[in-house]
């Protein structure tokens, strides 16, 4: 929320975010210039972040509401750095028009939603690929992890900024963890299954781009298509 981080922390998280955004914009330009045909999937990935992060969903475990992040698809298709740029666009939109998030806290919010969550999701993705995990299971895990970890990082950011309150970082972290991360578990699962399903439609529509992006090989595409006919 606007003004909810002491200004030193706002500056700190901006400094962390800016290099990712600069590099992300560079990668984004390169991607669009060199592989124009991937532009439509880039738009779809961004649109999923837009759509899912606008939903306030009840979380049945604790009885509060929270937003999914929708970053999973973009992480798998375009990697975490480009995801940081797509996320920051959504975060600016929500900060300006809904007073949701904030311009001062943009660095912290993009670090959790657009950078840290996606980076861990991407690590899961690479690991899944290395052990030849089923692509749909992999996408489920990537999406759920990117979503959940976003809120774990939010809890860490807040605990770091407000430790003295309860005496120590850990106690404060537990408070924020209970508020943010626990709420997120059912949403992360639901989002993971949704993106895995969406991925099926992307394979059926534009398998050619997935092969070009290196997400799947032609043999894998043929095999998956066969399993759904």
């Amino acid at each position, binding site marked *: *929320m*606007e*003004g*909810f981080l*002491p*200004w030193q922390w706002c500056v700190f998280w901006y400094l962390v975010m800016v290099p990712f955004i600069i590099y992300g914009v560079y990668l984004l330009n390169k991607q669009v210039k060199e592989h124009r045909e991937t532009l*439509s*999937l880039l*738009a*779809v990935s*961004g*649109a*999923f*972040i*837009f*759509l*899912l992060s*606008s*939903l*306030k969903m*009840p*979380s*049945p*475990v604790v*009885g*509060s*509401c*929270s937003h999914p992040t929708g970053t999973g698809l973009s992480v798998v298709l375009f990697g975490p750095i480009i995801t940081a740029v797509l996320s920051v666009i959504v975060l600016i*939109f929500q900060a*300006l*028009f*809904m*007073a*949701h998030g904030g*311009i*001062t806290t943009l660095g912290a919010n993009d670090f959790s939603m657009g950078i840290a969550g996606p980076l861990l999701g991407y690590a899961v993705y690479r690991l899944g690929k290395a052990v030849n995990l089923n692509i*749909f299971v992999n996408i489920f895990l990537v999406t759920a992890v990117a979503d959940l970890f976003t*809120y774990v990082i*939010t809890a860490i950011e*807040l605990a770091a900024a*407000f430790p003295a*309150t309860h005496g120590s970082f850990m106690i404060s972290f537990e*408070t*924020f963890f209970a*508020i*943010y991360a626990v*709420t997120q578990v*059912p949403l992360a*699962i*639901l989002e993971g*299954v*949704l993106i*895995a*399903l969406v991925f*099926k439609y992307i394979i059926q*529509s*534009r398998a050619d781009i997935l092969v070009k992006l290196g997400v799947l090989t032609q043999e894998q595409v043929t095999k998956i298509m066969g*399993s*759904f*006919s």
Partner: protein
Amino acid sequence: MNFKVFAKYRLEILFAVVVIVFAAVFLIQNANIQANAKPGQETWQGSDDMGSAAIEATGYTPWIQPLWTPPSTEVESLLFSIQSGLGAFVIGYFFGFYRGKRDSAKAA
């Protein structure tokens, strides 16, 4: 019985099952919460509002206010709906476009 259709739509079925379980747990949990809620107590709050409240409880006051805040929760829902709509529009547009391309390639 033809089981092939289950294999073909296994992800759709899985998604439907997860949604139903999610909704069922929500309904049960909601019944519990409503039964135990004190009159006037707000339920199903946003975790972000709870987070802000936890911060304010420490005696911290935000040092800056948003330039613009939606005047009511109704207006705020409208703006969030516009955001969802924009996202859904782009997704639907491109999936429709892919579908049309595929169909016309088949027809040719």
